[in-house]
C-alpha cells in the first residue's frame, strides 16, 4: 500500500511519518454488544501529503478523524504523531498537541458568533500564549492568505457561507500547524463555493501543507493525491485517487456512490 504514496511525498521525507496508526481499535460498549468503530487500522501519512479519507456514515471515518485530531483516544493500538505517542495522552496534553500540530476545518465552519472574524482567528494563537500584538499580526496575515483581511472586524454572521469557511481556514492556518484536518469542508456549501474551497486546499497543499480531508463524497475525495477508503472500521482501499478503483469497493445496497 505504501507504494501508492506519491513520489513527491516520499522524496520529501526522511522516513518518520507525520501520522502513524498502528493497529488502532476504537470500541464502544452499547449495552451487551460491542461496536467496533475502528477495527484495526494501520496507516502512515507523511509530511506534504494530501490525503482524503472517504467512507459513508457509520464507516468509522469520523472516529478516525477524532483520533487523528487528538479529540479522542483509541481503545487500543498506538498513534504516533511526528514520532510521539499521543494515544494515551491526558486532556490538557492533547489540547496542547491540537493547538500546536493541528488546524481544524469543520463542515459547519464553527466560528464563534459573538466575537469578530479577527478574534476568531486569534483564538488558537491566544491559547498558544502569544502576546496580543503577535496574535493580531499573525491573525491578519492568515486572513490575508484567504483574502479576507478587509473583513477582519466583521462579525461571522455578516459573511457568506464561503467566506465563513475561508475564515475557518484562516483560523486553522494561523497557528502554522503541521496537519490541516478538514472534516467535510464543502458539506455546507453550494457546489461552486465548494469547488473554490477545494481549490484553496489544493493550493495550500502545493505550498507544502499536509492536508487530511474527511468526506463521504467520492468526487471530492478524488481531488486529493491519495485516497484511503474506510468501511466498517477497516481500510478497504489506500492508493491513487482513481475514482474507478476506490469507488467500486462498496457494500451491496450502498446508495452513496456519487461518481
Amino acid at each position, binding site marked *: 500500500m505504501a507504494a501508492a504514496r506519491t513520489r513527491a511525498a516520499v522524496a520529501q521525507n526522511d522516513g518518520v511519518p507525520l501520522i502513524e496508526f498502528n493497529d488502532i481499535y476504537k470500541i464502544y460498549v452499547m449495552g451487551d454488544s460491542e461496536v467496533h468503530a475502528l477495527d484495526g487500522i494501520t496507516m502512515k501519512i507523511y509530511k506534504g501529503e494530501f490525503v482524503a479519507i472517504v467512507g459513508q456514515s457509520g464507516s468509522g471515518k469520523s472516529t478516525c478523524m477524532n483520533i487523528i485530531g487528538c479529540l479522542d483516544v483509541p481503545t487500543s493500538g498506538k498513534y504516533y504523531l511526528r514520532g510521539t505517542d499521543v494515544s494515551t495522552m491526558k486532556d490538557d496534553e492533547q489540547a496542547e498537541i491540537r*493547538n500546536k500540530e493541528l488546524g481544524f476545518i469543520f463542515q459547519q465552519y464553527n466560528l464563534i458568533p459573538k*466575537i469578530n472574524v479577527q478574534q476568531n482567528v486569534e*483564538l488558537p494563537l491566544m*491559547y498558544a500564549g502569544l502576546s496580543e500584538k503577535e496574535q493580531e499580526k499573525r491573525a491578519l496575515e492568515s486572513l490575508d492568505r484567504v483574502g479576507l483581511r478587509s473583513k477582519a472586524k466583521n462579525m461571522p454572521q455578516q459573511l457568506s457561507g464561503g467566506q465563513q469557511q475561508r475564515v475557518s481556514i484562516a483560523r486553522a492556518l494561523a497557528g502554522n500547524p503541521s496537519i490541516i484536518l478538514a472534516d467535510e469542508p464543502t458539506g455546507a456549501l453550494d457546489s461552486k463555493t465548494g469547488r473554490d474551497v477545494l481549490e484553496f486546499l489544493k493550493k495550500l497543499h502545493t505550498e507544502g501543507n499536509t492536508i487530511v480531508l474527511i468526506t463521504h463524497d467520492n468526487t471530492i475525495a478524488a481531488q486529493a493525491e491519495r485516497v484511503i477508503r474506510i468501511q466498517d472500521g477497516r481500510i478497504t482501499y489506500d492508493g491513487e485517487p482513481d475514482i474507478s478503483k476506490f469507488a467500486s469497493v462498496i457494500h451491496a445496497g450502498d446508495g452513496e456512490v456519487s461518481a
Partner: protein
Amino acid sequence: MTLKKSFALALKNLLFDKMRSLLTMLGIIIGVAAVIILISLMNGMMGLMNDEFSKLGTDSINVTVTDRGGKRTVDEKDMYKFAEENPDYIKAVSPNVTIPAATVKTADDDLTTSVNGVDERYADIRLNGLEQGRFLHYSDVERKQKVCVIGTYIEKELFGRGMGLGQTFKINGKSFKVVGVLNEEEDSESGSADDAIYIPYTVALTMSQNGFISSYIVQAANVEIVDGAVTKIKQYFDNKIGDSDYYSVLSVKQVMDMVNTMTGTMETLLVCIAGISLLVGGIGIMNIMLVSVTERTREIGIRKSLGAKNRDIKSQFVIEAGTVSGVGGIIGIIVGSILAVFFGSLLDLKTVPSFSAIAIAFGVSVAIGILFGYLPAKNAANLNPIDALRHE
C-alpha cells in the same frame, strides 16, 4: 486566555442579553443594596444616639442611691464632701430630684412635664447655656426660693417665645418665678431637651413625697478619668452603705458603650439577614451559568478543538460569573447608597454610606460570583470536545 480578553468577553456576554443579565444580577443587586442601606442606617442611628448621649456629657456619671436609714446612707452633704475630697476625680456634683408628671399651669394654659430639682452646679455639668436671665444660684437653693429655669418648649407653650423671663406659673399648685430661659437645644418640641424645668433641689425635695435625695449627677474631672471616677464612687458607697443593691453608679460612657454593643449586635444580625439575599443571588448566578454552559457547549467544543485547556475554559466561565456578580455588586452599591441617603433623610438621620460597607459588599458579591460560578465552570471544562462540537 488573557485576563483582559476573558473580562472583555464576559462584559460582551453580559450586554448580549440585557434583560437576562439584569434578572441574573437582581439577587446580588438587592443583597448588596440591602447590606449598604442597613449598615448606613445603623451607622446613622448610632451617630444620632452618640450625639444625644454626648449632650448629656460624656464626662457625667449618674449615681442613684436608696435610703437605708441610720448611718449607713449617703445624703447630699456626704456627696459634696466626697467631691471636695477627690478633686482629681470629680469636678462637680449636683443632686437630681425629679418630680415626674408635674402639672404646670398659668392662668390660660396648662401642661404636664417632669420637673428636675438640681443645684447651681448643674448648669455647668449638663446644660448648654442660657438664652435669657440666669441659672439657679446657691442662695436660691439654700433659701429654698421658688424660682425656676425653663426650656424653650415650656416658654413657648406657656408664654410665647421670648416672653417667659420674669413670669410666674404654678407647678403642682405652687407658684414659681422664671429667672432664666435655656438655649434652644433641639426644636422646642414636647419631649425634647427643651421640654425641661429646673428648680432648686431643696424645693423639689419638699414637693416630693420622699424626703431623700436618690439621684446625683456627677461630673468627672475629665473624660479620660470617667472610669476611675466610677470606681472611686463605688468604693465610697461600698464603705458607706455596704450593700451594692442600695446604689448604682453608671457613667454616660458606660451606657454609650452598652448601647453601641447592642446596636452592633443588631447590625450584625440584620446584615446576616441581608446576606441571605446575597446567597440567593449567588444561586441565581449559578443557575444562569449552568444554562449558559449548556447553551454554549458548541463554543466550548470549538475552543477545545483549537487548543483551549481545561483551565482556560474554567477560568473563562469563572471570570464571567465574577463579572456578572461584580457588575451586579456595583449596581447594588449605587442603588443602595442612593436609597440609604433617601431613607436617612426621611428618618432625619445622617447616613453616609461608609467606604468599608461598600468595599465589603463589592468584595462579597465578586466572591459569591466566583464561588457559585465554579461548579458550572468545572462542568464546562470537563465537557468532552467531540460531544461538545457535535452539540446543536
